[in-house]
């Protein structure tokens, strides 16, 4: 691959600046560069080149000094992240340093960050589902939050557009609440999952169990290789088989000849020009040299990830915007949402002892939402809904078996019992008082104010979680599983790593930050297309929607630019 152009020393003026290179920033860069705009991508962390910078991608456990274990120093570096259960030696280098990048939990909140080129697109779960009008109409219908300024028909062609390029595998089901994507062939369920699917769909006529729809290639696509079922995705994939900025969007952006990507660039604020009534550039701090530098451009895409994007806007103060850029409504920083996480049930599956599988499929099953999708499925306990992810596998914990010695040892060389779990993801309502604020009392290493996060799940989310667990246990009972354990880890927000909101889209500048094309109402050459823009949270994974919104906004930005509207 061609080296990335990281030389932003001489050139300080660009057509477009994109802040951040994760899932949405990568798309913004690709679209803007391919449409001919000289584009500067400002990346807070280091360059991570596809394959070249994936040091652990081929390591077996015994290749690692501590077989994946972390030293006390590494645990201290990730002292917040460690709660997530995700960080190990194999991925530690892709997770941000919690100690060097503090945030304050006014209420418990886990904020997982990836500070490098590609951001969390290297680490994400890769579950990809379209949202439907059930989602885009939800606020208007039940009166929570404000109405989305768009409907499914507005984003539908852009879903197709990004799916065709990204490569999404899945099975078409024609479900109104979960529209089909433009699919590559689906992955397959194993025997136990197929068995359970049959039982669930027989016992519950309102439910489907489908193979997860995901951003993994099930056949070669646009020069990328297909998934090899190693399930080492988060270390970086040598085949480029899953969607990441590094493997998918940044290489074509670079190939256009229009991309400059500047690493170690912490964006301090946007520069607002009162006379021109627009943003003319950004101020950055070089994280290595502490040098302050300004870059200017005609348009700016802010894609720093939900909370970092809002942090930048809040920190962009001027006499026109005393409380943060675009904050005329007072909603900037508010309406933070996440999905509830790790609430469901698991159990053991009898039989199938002579069946196994080959390959570590990086995907599971999905049970689409079935509550509150129409009049017949209406709940009187809560609004909105939930879906389940899950998986069947041979598991068990051999340490729990009450035995030891020769026969025991020989027995545990065989695979353990079949187990199956489902875990729900519930929609979180947009509450004005779930918010982030700038904290001038805690400064980071570069003297910048940090974020205080004050958010919680409330009665509606708790009622959804109660229903999730009850339904999960009931489903596993009805399909005949044994030793069923219902669970609710009662995680605070953040664990779902689907943080959304804080700079929401809306129809009315008095109650929202962004318009229907993700433009800041009062500074239309600024676009926010990461999770910060979300007006509601749906119950399905949001990343595919960020991709589609970004491509749509970039297209709009370029057409406005051609009309000389910026």
């Amino acid at each position, binding site marked *: 691959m061609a080296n990335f152009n990281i030389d932003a020393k001489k050139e300080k003026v660009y057509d477009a600046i994109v802040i951040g290179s994760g899932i949405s920033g990568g798309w913004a860069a690709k679209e803007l560069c391919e449409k001919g705009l000289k584009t500067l991508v400002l990346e807070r962390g280091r360059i991570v080149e596809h394959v070249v910078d994936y040091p652990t991608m*081929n390591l*077996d*456990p*015994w290749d690692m*000094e*501590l*077989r994946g*274990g*972390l*030293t*006390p120093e590494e*645990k201290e570096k990730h002292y917040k992240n460690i709660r*997530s*259960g*995700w960080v190990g030696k194999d991925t530690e280098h892709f997770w941000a340093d919690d100690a060097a990048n503090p945030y304050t939990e006014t209420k418990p909140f886990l904020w997982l960050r990836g500070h490098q080129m590609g951001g969390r697109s290297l680490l994400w779960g890769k579950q990809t589902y379209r949202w439907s009008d059930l989602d885009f109409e939800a606020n208007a219908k039940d009166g929570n939050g404000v109405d989305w300024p768009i409907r499914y028909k507005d984003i539908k062609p852009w879903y197709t557009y990004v799916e065709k390029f990204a490569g999404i595998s899945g099975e078409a089901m024609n479900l109104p609440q979960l529209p089909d994507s433009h699919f590559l062939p689906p*992955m*397959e*369920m*194993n*025997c136990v*999952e*197929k068995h359970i699917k049959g039982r669930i769909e027989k016992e519950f006529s309102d439910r489907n169990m489908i193979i997860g729809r995901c951003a993994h290639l099930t056949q070669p696509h646009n020069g990328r290789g297909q998934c*090899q*079922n*190693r399930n080492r995705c988060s270390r970086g994939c040598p085949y480029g088989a899953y969607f990441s900025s590094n493997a998918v969007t940044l290489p074509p952006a670079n190939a256009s000849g229009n991309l400059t990507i500047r690493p170690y660039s912490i964006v301090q604020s946007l520069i607002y020009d009162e006379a021109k009534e627009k943003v003319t550039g950004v101020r950055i701090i070089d994280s290595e040299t502490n040098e302050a530098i300004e870059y200017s451009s005609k348009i700016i895409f802010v894609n720093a990830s939900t909370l970092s994007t809002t942090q930048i806007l809040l920190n962009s103060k001027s006499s026109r915007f005393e409380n943060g850029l675009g904050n005329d409504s007072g909603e900037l920083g508010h309406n933070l949402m996440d999905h509830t996480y*790790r609430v469901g049930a*698991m159990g053991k599956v009898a039989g199938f*002892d*002579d*069946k*196994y*599988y*080959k*390959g*570590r*499929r990086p995907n599971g099953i999905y049970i689409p939402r079935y509550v509150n999708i129409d009049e017949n499925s209406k709940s009187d306990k809560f609004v909105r809904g939930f879906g389940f992810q899950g998986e069947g596998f*041979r*598991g068990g*914990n*051999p*340490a*729990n078996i*009450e*035995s*030891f*010695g*020769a026969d*025991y*040892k*020989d027995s*545990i*060389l*065989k*695979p*353990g019992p079949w187990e199956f*779990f489902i*875990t729900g993801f519930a929609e979180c309502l947009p509450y004005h008082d779930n918010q982030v604020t700038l904290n001038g009392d805690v400064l980071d290493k570069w003297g910048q104010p940090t974020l205080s996060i004050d958010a919680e799940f409330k009665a509606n989310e708790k009622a959804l979680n109660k229903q999730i667990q009850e339904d999960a246990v009931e489903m596993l009972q009805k399909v005949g599983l044994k030793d069923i*354990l219902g*669970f609710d*880890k009662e995680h605070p927000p953040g664990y779902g790593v689907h943080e959304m909101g804080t700079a929401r889209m809306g129809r009315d500048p008095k109650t929202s930050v962004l318009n229907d094309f993700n433009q800041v109402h009062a500074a239309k050459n600024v676009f926010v297309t990461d999770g910060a823009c979300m007006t509601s949270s749906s119950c399905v994974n949001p990343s595919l929607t960020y991709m589609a919104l970004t491509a749509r906004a970039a297209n709009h930005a370029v057409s406005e630019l051609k009309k000389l509207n910026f």
Partner: protein
Amino acid sequence: MPSLLSLFQSCKTESRLDWQPAFLKEEEVKTISALLDMILPRTETPGALDVKADMFIDKVFAETYDITGQKNIRAEIATFNADCKKNFGAIFTDLNEADRTKVLQEAETTSEKFNPGIWGVSLGKQKPIGFYRSMKSMAIWAYFTSEEMGKKVLSYDPIPGNYDPCKPLSGVGNRWSL
């Protein structure tokens, strides 16, 4: 404080380690190694000691435990041996085979078990896992993640390629190592 004579005698009667532990003291290593050898002995396949699980566990204590964790594990080994002494008259490594077996049987039936987990976190409210089952769990981890077990005894498939969703177990044999 042992007398010079008793030190001398112990040197004569007990085998010395042929490796230098990074954290554990000699008596502690011997306790751990003896436990590992009883839980996962050599059969037609290697045992825990054959794949140097004891050496790896010492390294884990040395390099991944913080000072509190190290203090705790040391105290737990001491308590384990003190209980052996109280109930059977000697520390674990000085017990005969029958008494050692009784110690393990007792620990198996009385100690708490691990809750199942998903995505790296255990589910439900986990009761504290005692020294014995923690060590057993660690032994299995060290055993299964050793190169010899992972590549030669368990079924090794670093690049599966296709996914076979329903393969007869007879066509695989032992569990997948990865």
